[in-house]
């Protein structure tokens, strides 16, 4: 690319000053069409090589009994048996349920808190830009690295979280075993996820609120609509497409949730926090059941893709209103 660029430029420099553009183009032999493809092709080729090719390979593997730890064993086609096993495996259904539980609660909490914060920041109090930047910090950090440190905060005897909860509620710190207690562990993850990603929802909601033109509120004021009425008839509906977009992005991300769960609980205690990605990782890299894991991966991808598509349709309907 670089070489051809410089040759082209030298030739062009020599001729450009005196020659009409059409002639230059013919001399160089690079039509706009060629440039377009030349520019787009590298990105597409890379995506085909590192995203699409592996996906097709995974589809192929999902119909076989291949095991990655035995690369020399004979590979046999097993038809739809892997899919049958995946779809009838109670553990996988349990993992899907756990995932759905996480996605649901993180979205509810992050949307409610995020929208509230955006609504308050939109009042433009003094110093709002500074505090907004502070709030945005967690979402820029590494979920794995920060999640790992939260394990320390959650320690019942020495952790700051247990100490703070105990100080506020009077419950003994030894009873605040966030990561060891079956009923608390899912919430330990939901809390960290909410801490990290509420700013994300907040930011998108803020963009939504800022997009509402002032004259609508002025008209409502003239009509003597109460603030409550204005909130529900103007603010919420006008910001809804943005909120829905935030929910879409968070939903897709949390469906794939892996790093934070791995580091906080590793799926435990027992398997109460075992989300789909963790089950998949176990099947693929611990049991080395490559074929079955691939089938599960395809099922997951189809599920995300299908749900996202249905959701985007709903989003477009809301936008058109």
């Amino acid at each position, binding site marked *: 690319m670089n070489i051809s660029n410089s040759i082209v430029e030298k030739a062009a420099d020599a001729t450009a000053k005196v*020659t009409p553009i059409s002639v230059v183009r013919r001399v160089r032999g690079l039509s706009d069409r060629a440039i377009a493809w030349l520019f*787009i092709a590298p990105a597409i080729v890379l995506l085909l090589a590192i995203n699409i090719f592996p996906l097709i390979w995974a589809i192929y593997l999902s119909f076989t009994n291949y095991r990655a730890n035995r690369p020399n064993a004979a590979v046999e086609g097993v038809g739809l048996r892997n899919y049958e096993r995946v779809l009838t495996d109670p553990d996988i259904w349990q993992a899907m349920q756990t995932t759905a539980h996480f996605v649901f609660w993180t979205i509810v909490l992050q949307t409610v808190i995020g929208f509230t914060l955006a609504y308050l920041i939109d009042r433009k109090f003094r110093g709002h830009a500074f505090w907004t930047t502070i709030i945005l910090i967690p979402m820029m950090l590494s979920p794995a690295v920060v999640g*790992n440190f939260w394990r320390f905060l959650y320690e019942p005897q020495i952790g*700051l979280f247990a100490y703070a909860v105990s100080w506020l509620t009077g419950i003994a710190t030894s009873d605040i075993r966030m990561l060891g207690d079956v009923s608390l562990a899912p919430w330990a993850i939901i809390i960290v996820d909410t801490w990290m990603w509420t700013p994300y929802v907040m930011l998108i909601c803020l963009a939504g609120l800022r997009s509402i033109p002032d004259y609508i*509120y002025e008209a409502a004021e003239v009509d003597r609509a109460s603030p409550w009425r204005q909130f529900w008839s103007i603010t919420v509906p006008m910001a809804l497409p943005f909120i829905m977009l935030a929910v879409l992005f968070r939903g897709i991300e949390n469906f794939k949730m892996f790093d934070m769960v791995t580091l906080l609980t590793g799926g435990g205690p027992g398997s109460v926090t075992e989300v*789909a990605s963790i089950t998949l990782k176990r099947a693929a890299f611990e049991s080395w059941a490559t074929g079955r894991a691939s089938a599960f991966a395809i099922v997951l991808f189809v599920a995300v893709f299908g749900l996202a598509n249905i959701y985007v349709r709903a989003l477009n309907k809301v936008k058109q209103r």
Partner: protein
Amino acid sequence: MSCANSAHSVVEPSFTSKRIAGAIVILYALITLIPLVWIFLTSIKSPPDSISYPPKIVFTPSLEGYCNLLTTRTRQTPEYIASLPEPTGTCDEVTRKRNMVIAGPSNFLPRFFNSLLIAFGSTFLAVLLGTMAAYGFSRFRVPLADDLLFFILSTRMMPPIAVAIPIYLMYRELGLSDTALGMILLYTAVNVSLAVWLLKGFIDEIPREYEEAAMIDGYTRLQAFRKVVLPQATTGIAATAIFCLIFAWNEYAFAALLTSGSAQTAPPFIPTIIGEGGQDWPAVAAGTTIFLIPILVFTILLRKQLLRGITFGAVRK
């Protein structure tokens, strides 16, 4: 919420409502900050201080966490330690107080260096390929452009673990597993989708007339791209680069599954730092602090472009 009782525009919130809003937001921001402040405080505590109960807010700062992060140590008898020559540095000193001697450097710096190499390498490639593709999509009539763009976006919907299996197999065949090159290519592929979408938005906003004028003045298409479009797109390119950098810097799943030793990055490494009898929290906190600082700086630099980056440019502020 009430905005009727002020003398300003009817939609300007009142002074009191601003104050209440401000107080709630600041409270939330401070709660958000606690874990981060705690990471930093833990990093400058001695190990006994870090696990004392109730948690210590006032303590004597110590560099032990940073020393433990950067070195490996072995336990020795007090007699042996007494027989050694005078300690040469602070780390020597604190280590000997715990009846240990420094055996050598730890793996942290190589892992940190891997993170730098892989993050910057993949960012450079993703931005290069992304800028070219974005210009292509923005300025030329590409057949099936919408489908291609959607295809590019949809590659981000796949759970990393789902493609990790075939990528693992592919890399094993090609000798790319546990290499920096393999990770750079992988992160480039993941980031290029974001780069194309973001940069297309930025380039769309540069008027075509600029290039047309340049081309009438005798520039070729490529010259116009280089000398007119690229300088105009600098801000957008910089913002895109930082987003790609942040992703590659923070990524864990691929790194944990596809690297095990020489190409391992910091995110899978930091959680494995252990001391005697469990996790050495000051050392972990020290590693975390060093690892987070670049991102904190970028967040502050980036706050204006943040929204576009996280929504693939779907929302503009």
